[in-house]
């Protein structure tokens, strides 16, 4: 027993359902594209502002399906490590007798890890700090510490934002855009 009206309704409902899904998929892929663009533009701006350098591109290339959290993991390790070291620098400078040897070692450490991340702003702040430390200029050191903290706070805030965009791309079913890197000079 066929009921033409029922069949038509079913077919029409299915067509609408399909159109709705297609539109949703199109909207979703539009959203992914928008987010991917945002990711690329935002990263570029960090390079332009001298906050990140090419090393950050190399880190992005190390992230893939087998290790999709690598960037977030290494960036968060950098945050935890650097936060603690900046606090150590503060405690050291607050002492009656500043331990300049220790200051130098701590700065060397921050310089190294910021270099590995590509956080060139922090790296440069440390280079200036080392000079003040070598001159045993305590007042200069306090100024340098403030510079280093500022540079750190900036890169932390920017990378937090970048990682959020990354998460949104993944949540929307998209893939993270991969950068191109400068070929290494031998």
């Amino acid at each position, binding site marked *: 027993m066929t009921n033409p009206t029922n069949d038509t309704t079913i077919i029409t409902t299915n067509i609408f359902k399909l159109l709705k899904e297609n539109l949703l998929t199109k909207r979703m892929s539009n959203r992914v594209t928008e987010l991917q663009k945002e990711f690329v533009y935002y990263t570029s701006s960090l390079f332009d502002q001298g906050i990140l350098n090419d090393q950050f591109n*190399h880190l992005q290339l190390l992230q893939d399906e087998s290790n999709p959290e690598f960037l977030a993991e*290494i960036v968060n390790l950098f945050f935890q490590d650097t936060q603690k070291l900046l606090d150590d620098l503060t405690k050291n400078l607050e002492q009656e007798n500043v331990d300049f040897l220790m200051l130098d070692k701590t700065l060397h450490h921050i310089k*190294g890890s910021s270099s*590995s*991340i590509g956080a060139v702003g922090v790296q440069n702040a440390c280079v200036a700090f080392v000079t003040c430390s070598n001159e045993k200029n305590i007042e200069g050191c306090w100024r340098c510490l403030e510079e280093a903290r500022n540079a750190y706070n900036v890169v932390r805030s920017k990378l937090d934002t970048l990682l959020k965009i990354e998460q949104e791309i993944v949540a929307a079913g998209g893939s993270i855009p991969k950068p191109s890197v400068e070929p*290494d000079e031998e």
Partner: protein
Amino acid sequence: MAVDTQFHVLAVDDSIVDRKLIERLLTTSSFHVTAVDSGTKALELLGLQGNETRDSHHHDHHQDAEVNLIITDYCMPGMTGYDLLRKIKESESLKDIPVVIMSSENIPARINRCLEEGAEEFFLKPVRLSDVDKLKPHLIRSKSKVQYSLDNKISSYEIHDEVF
């Protein structure tokens, strides 16, 4: 008899960020990695291997624990990478393991000192994939030395003369 052909690299670095990075670089290049934060811990790990290889010539039983290459940071508190390199080269059981030094500072005197002490390579940080690509020849050369001597039951000293 299935032989594990994946090379095992021991990475030594006191910086947690750099350890994470070198671990990822090595894993991406298909190495099996163990990362430690000091020269002392590295020697502990190697010391166990040293005891085993002294007792037995059958390396394949200890494939998992066996270290095929050591890559270490130069500047570390306590035992520096140079100190570690020296200790390894002074050890009968460990001296044939290739050692690579990493440093954030480009100091020619430092580099030469390490190479003279027996380091295979010196990498300037931050280390890149192109650097890690340079490791495979060192590993293949040292591993085939061991394999050849096991297969043919000839002492590695004789092979040294013949092959090289």
